[in-house]
């Protein structure tokens, strides 16, 4: 059985030995620290990225899906040609859906254009001009007005040049003025003045892409400016996720009817997509990278383990005589095994603790650089130390076994 006193003796000897050979201990630690830091940093960054992406795409909720001519992500040139041949999605399609779909809660349309917006001598570039109808599109998009108001339904139907601006406009066009200063002002889109009715609350940016660089105008106004030729995107929101599938089925039926799609047709004639499409794309695009980076980090931890094993082998060789003495006075094989295992685990656990701290530091630095929030979990800290202890046990196992198997007579002859 394992005697507590012998285990304490092993621990005492381990720390004594580590302290006596500070340089060697430091070199051993480097291997483990680098390995653990790499794994912790990579895992923490991935966790932060995943959470940020999930949060971003869920702000519009998994209660929204779209009907559009092209899918949001086109994967090949053949697909692009195929999709372009389809009929545009029109206002009438949206009205039909709103009229016929019972599981649908809110239905709206939106069309985007990228423009340069001006105010006086100030300019904002690459602004998303979004024509929407009805005003519940603001709710579907998940945006709220901070100061001012949205247009009324009758104002929206009139085709007047009115808008609601995103907060980036305040920075770029109004020299960072407070929102109430912008309300009532004019901004120029494509040479034409638009009256600012309200300013939206900020949404922030994701991966450097600002979601506040937007100007909402009524769809009727958008039509006047860009013509009816462009295809629109129809947004449908359901009240709860359980309604999603029935709503999708209904909308699909309505659209197939309108397109006169044959039951066995190869191309439906439209694209029905949920927000998940981004999450799934993100997931599949990143899964290979994630595996590779965690794998590489794990390899560096393996190298750390090999370093520990190497140092332990040297330690055993140097202390052959000491092992012989201990055996002569009654240490059994498992006492010697335990002693060296504890030494390996102690060094590895210390390295693990330092590595976890370093790993979090690295993750913090990288996340600050790229611009996404840091997600430190106690769980990964614990996992890091546990992982390094396991590495310690595995790398110490062979040297400890060799030490335990030494013949006491031979060992006493050493040195």
């Amino acid at each position, binding site marked *: 059985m394992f*005697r507590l*006193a*012998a285990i304490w*003796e092993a621990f005492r000897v381990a720390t*004594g*030995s580590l302290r*006596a050979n500070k340089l060697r201990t430091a070199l051993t630690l480097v291997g483990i620290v680098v390995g653990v830091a790499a794994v912790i940093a990579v895992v923490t960054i991935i966790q932060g990225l995943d959470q940020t992406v999930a949060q971003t795409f869920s702000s519009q909720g998994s209660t929204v899906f779209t009907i559009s001519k092209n899918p949001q992500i086109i994967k090949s040139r053949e697909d692009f040609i195929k999709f372009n041949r389809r009929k545009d999605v029109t206002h009438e399609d949206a009205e039909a859906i709103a009229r016929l779909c019972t599981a649908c809660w809110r239905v709206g349309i939106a069309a985007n254009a990228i423009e340069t917006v001006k105010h006086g001598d100030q300019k904002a570039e690459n602004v998303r001009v979004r024509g929407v109808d009805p005003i519940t599109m603001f709710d579907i998009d998940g945006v709220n007005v901070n100061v001012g108001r949205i247009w009324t339904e009758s104002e929206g139907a009139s085709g007047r040049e009115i808008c609601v601006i995103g907060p980036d406009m305040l920075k770029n066009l109004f020299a960072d003025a407070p929102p109430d200063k912008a309300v009532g002002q004019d901004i120029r889109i494509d040479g034409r003045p638009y009256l600012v009715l309200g300013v939206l609350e900020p949404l922030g940016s994701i991966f450097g892409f600002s979601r506040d660089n937007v100007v909402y105008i009524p769809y009727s106004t958008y039509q006047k400016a860009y013509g009816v030729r462009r295809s629109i995107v129809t947004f449908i929101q359901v009240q709860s996720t359980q309604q999603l599938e029935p709503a999708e089925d209904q909308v699909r039926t309505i659209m197939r009817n309108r397109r006169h799609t044959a039951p066995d047709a190869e191309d439906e004639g439209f694209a029905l997509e949920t927000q998940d499409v981004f999450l799934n794309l993100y997931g599949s695009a990143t899964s290979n990278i994630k595996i590779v980076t965690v794998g590489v980090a794990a390899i560096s931890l393996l190298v750390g383990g090999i370093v520990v094993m190497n140092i332990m082998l040297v330690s055993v060789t140097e202390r052959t*005589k*000491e092992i*012989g*003495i*201990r*055996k*002569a*006075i*009654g*240490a*059994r*094989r*498992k*006492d010697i095994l335990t002693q060296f295992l504890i030494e390996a685990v102690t060094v590895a656990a210390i390295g693990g603790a330092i590595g976890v701290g370093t790993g979090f530091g690295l993750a913090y630095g990288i996340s600050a650089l790229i611009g996404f929030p840091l997600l430190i979990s106690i769980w990964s800290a614990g996992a890091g130390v546990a992982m390094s202890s396991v590495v310690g046990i595995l790398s110490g196992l062979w040297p400890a076994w060799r030490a335990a198997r030494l013949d*006491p*007579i031979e060992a*006493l002859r050493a040195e």
Partner: protein
Amino acid sequence: MSDDATLTLTPPESVTTPRAEVSGHDPKMLISMRNIWKTYQMGTESVHALHGVSFDIPRGEYIAIIGPSGSGKSTLMNLIGCLDTPSQGEYWLNGKNVSEMDDDELARIRNQEVGFVFQTFNLLARATALHNVELPLIYGGVSASQRHEMAKSALHAVDLTERMTHKPNELSGGQRQRVAIARALVNRPSILLADEPTGALDSHTSMEIMDLFGRLHSEGNTIIVVTHEHDIAARAHRVVSIRDGLIEKDERIK
């Protein structure tokens, strides 16, 4: 546990086996060796370090084993001390047949029954004298408070109480050997087994150590000294001469 300066052995709690079960073993003897062979394989040849050695050692004996190098005395010592097992034959120590024990059992025997004293002391350099003496007790599963007391009284018995917190490099050769002797006796073993105990000491200190052995013997300990020096052997009460793996002479001198 006595608290005066003597270090006596407690009476053996030996296993009493019925005579029918033991073969050729004299239960009155502390050590009983019967037809001991030790053979090593050197390539295709077998080399016999011991050629069928037999003898008995009663409790309380002070015996010297003397022989030139290559005589097999080191091999015999390793067998007596249970650091090794014979290739053939039986070895009974304190009523137990140790010739067929496995590694863990032998370790326990070494811990409980044998106290080693080496020529080069073999103390742990990074531990104090007290900790060195405690070591057999640690491996013997003795509780911390008891260990302290037992180690302290062992050091007291060899007159080293003032030095107990010193490390070996702070002690003279004679003092180191006394620490080693205290360590050898702390667990109350059946035998004290010394391998050239004065080999690394000057003549004056050698005499001190041999005087100590003499005193320990008079207190009831069984002492076995392995040596090649005749004046060291002469301090014992019985001398066994060994040559070429066989016992040449076995005479009582006191």
